[in-house]
């Protein structure tokens, strides 16, 4: 029996929200640590989180506890961890008969944790690391539980389609943010500069193990965009997106289906066969913008074809 279209939609969004929330937590965790390491103003160290995940205004002298609550517990910030988890849970709830009991329980316990008044107090009272570490680990646990307990089938494929769409976009957005701060100059920036980004994408250790030479910036760009073995790189994410969504589309043996599959194949080829010897600020920007546009177009067409009920 095929999945209900509404439930497929829920699955896709469930993992989009979780992926976004887990990435936000990593960005915040690094920003928080960074706020002690550097002589930056408190709010400056949260610029990446602010620009990528929040479109509100944060004043220079905002207290760190308030800043963290804005990103983590604020009900009026549409991209706070609390709101994202609430939306993920609503999607899980509406498709509860298709996810495993363990996935539901893991998500539900995260939801109750983030909604407990104690979290707000801890963030205000200097116990932010406790909250950030807990969330950080719980998101890893979520993916572990998902991987261990979910049946492989259509639901799994929608979950992963959502996850890799979100991951591709986040990798593009985060990379672009750090490049922009260097005025897109690939000769600028050392490994200390890029460390928060690599940590946010879970690739810091992996990058260090593979360093061939300096300067770091071109290598890091190459690593984040083209490394097939780094699970947050653009090529890895797009390859996975291709794999999972192709399985879904090809079960619909329509002519439009073939054309939608070709779109994601083109996107994958554009990245896979990109001549990275020509990498410079301008070409990277162009690559990122094109990739983002192609992903959104693909997503629109995929949505219309499969979920447009």
């Amino acid at each position, binding site marked *: *029996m*095929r*999945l*209900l*279209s*509404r*439930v*497929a939609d829920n699955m896709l969004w469930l993992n989009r929200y979780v992926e976004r929330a887990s990435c936000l937590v990593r960005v915040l965790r690094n920003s928080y640590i960074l706020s002690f390491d550097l002589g930056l103003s408190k709010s400056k160290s949260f610029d990446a989180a602010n620009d990528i995940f929040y479109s509100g205004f944060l004043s220079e002298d905002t207290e760190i506890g308030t800043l963290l609550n804005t990103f983590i517990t604020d*009900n009026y910030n549409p991209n706070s961890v609390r709101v994202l988890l*609430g939306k993920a849970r*609503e999607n899980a*709830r*509406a498709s*509860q*008969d298709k996810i495993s*009991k363990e996935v*539901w*329980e893991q998500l*539900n*316990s995260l939801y*109750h944790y983030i*909604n407990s008044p104690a979290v707000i107090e801890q963030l205000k009272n200097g116990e932010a690391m406790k909250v950030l570490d807990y969330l950080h680990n719980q998101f890893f646990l979520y993916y572990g539980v998902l991987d261990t307990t979910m049946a492989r089938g*259509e639901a799994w494929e929608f979950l992963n389609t959502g996850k890799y769409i979100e991951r591709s976009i986040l990798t593009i957005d985060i990379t672009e943010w750090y490049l922009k701060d260097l005025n897109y100059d690939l000769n600028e920036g050392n490994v200390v500069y890029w460390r928060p980004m690599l940590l946010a994408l879970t690739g810091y250790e992996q990058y260090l193990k593979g360093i061939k030479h300096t300067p770091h910036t071109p290598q890091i760009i190459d690593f984040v965009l083209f490394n097939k073995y780094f699970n947050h790189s653009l090529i890895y994410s797009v390859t996975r997106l291709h794999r999972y969504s192709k399985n*879904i589309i090809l*079960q*619909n043996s329509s002519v439009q289906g073939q054309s939608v599959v070709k779109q994601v194949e083109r996107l994958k080829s554009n990245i896979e066969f990109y001549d990275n010897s020509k990498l410079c600020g301008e070409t990277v920007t162009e690559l990122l913008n094109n990739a983002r546009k192609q992903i959104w177009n693909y997503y629109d067409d995929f949505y219309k074809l*499969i*979920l447009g*009920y």
Partner: protein
Amino acid sequence: MRTVYPIETLTGWDEMFTAEGVRERYNRIMATLENLTIEDLKLKHVQASDFFMNNGITFTVYSDNEGIERIFPFDIIPRIITREEWQHIEAGIKQRLTALNRFLKDVYHDQQIIKDGIIPGELIESCPHFLKEMIGVNVPHDVYVHISGIDLIRGADGVFYILEDNLRTPSGVSYMLENREVTKRILPESLYQNKVNGVSHYPLFLQQIMQDMSDKEAPTMVVLTPGVYNSAYYEHTFLAKQMGVPLVEGRDLVVQNDMVYMKTTGGLEQVDVIYRRIDDEFIDPLVFRSDSMLGVPGIMQAYKKGNVCLVNAVGNGVADDKAVYVYVPDMIRYYLNEEPILPNVPTYRLENEGDRLYVFENIRKMVVKETNQSGGYGMLMGPSATDEEVEKCIAAVKKSPRSFIAQPVITLSTVPCLIDGKLQPRHVDLRPYALCGANGDIKIVPGGLTRVALKEGSLVVNSSQGGGSKDTWVID
């Protein structure tokens, strides 16, 4: 801990204690409780609450732009029923359900029971849940009530009475099942020692009766829910998951050429059997409430043509109307030629002038109920009502006598509950869940939902009115 509450607090039948001491059936659990400190019991209570919270067995209260998750209160001390008592209850429910199914077929076809003067025709005609759209409609295997939750109470005399029949979309069965799951975690040894009968096979029975309603070998079955904002949504997901069938909303279904289909990623897929948890009035906006966003346009036409089976049937409300309830013992005699095994609570029909005057004179000893309400709404508790509430009720009865019945206040039996760190008696009822299959075969898992009025002295057990629940053990 002190396990015996003062005898003067016993106001009627207590399920655990008599004036002489503990009833035999509770001996083992009492021994367990005596070995636990109050701190142990409190810890078990927290464990139970965490179980419900972490499993999402909650309902949401919306306040100040925020949704707050709440659990339905659960009391850790079980209510125990002996095998002999259970056999009596089971036989009584089977008898009643058989008669009610025959009544529904009769009332929507020949109406012989009216012609024979057993039930007044005007009573049926005036029932808002008697649906003319169902007249002459044949339902698969003549089964109207596939799933029922019949509420029982035990009076001060120790006798079980039928309080009301729930034959439309009775809820609470997931709590019966989850309460047992919690007990397995907090009182595992006691379950084993007391030889408690299992209830976990309920979803298998349900799946079987749904399957039997279709002629197909492998019918496509679904559970139809009003959606995530419904207070019983957890139960809908639970049952769908336990049966391995999709949980659908009205917007997931579409009717084409009088067939019902669900919208899947692979296109439309025909649906054969629907366990619907949407009330009659919302199920088809083309036939009933046109503003319903929950139902499926055209589903009634598909149903009438026999292209889809709805579980429960549409129009069952006529049989669980509180004014029709009075006639159920007569139905049993009429259709089955048997005496009712389980008695009704004495009930006054207020459109009868004599009954009405008697009730007005004795209203402080009565419970007055609206015939079309459930969940503890539309009810006046005579002994505790204010003068203003009584006056308002009398005025409403005078305006529309058919819409009310009255019953003498029956002191529901009590069971000890852990409240404020000590055992205190609280009133309970019992809702066993019965399933009726293709050949009229009725299955009831040994147990049910024991609902508790957690407020001291209260006789209102409904969850919407501050009630909680307990695990119900049927022991051999």
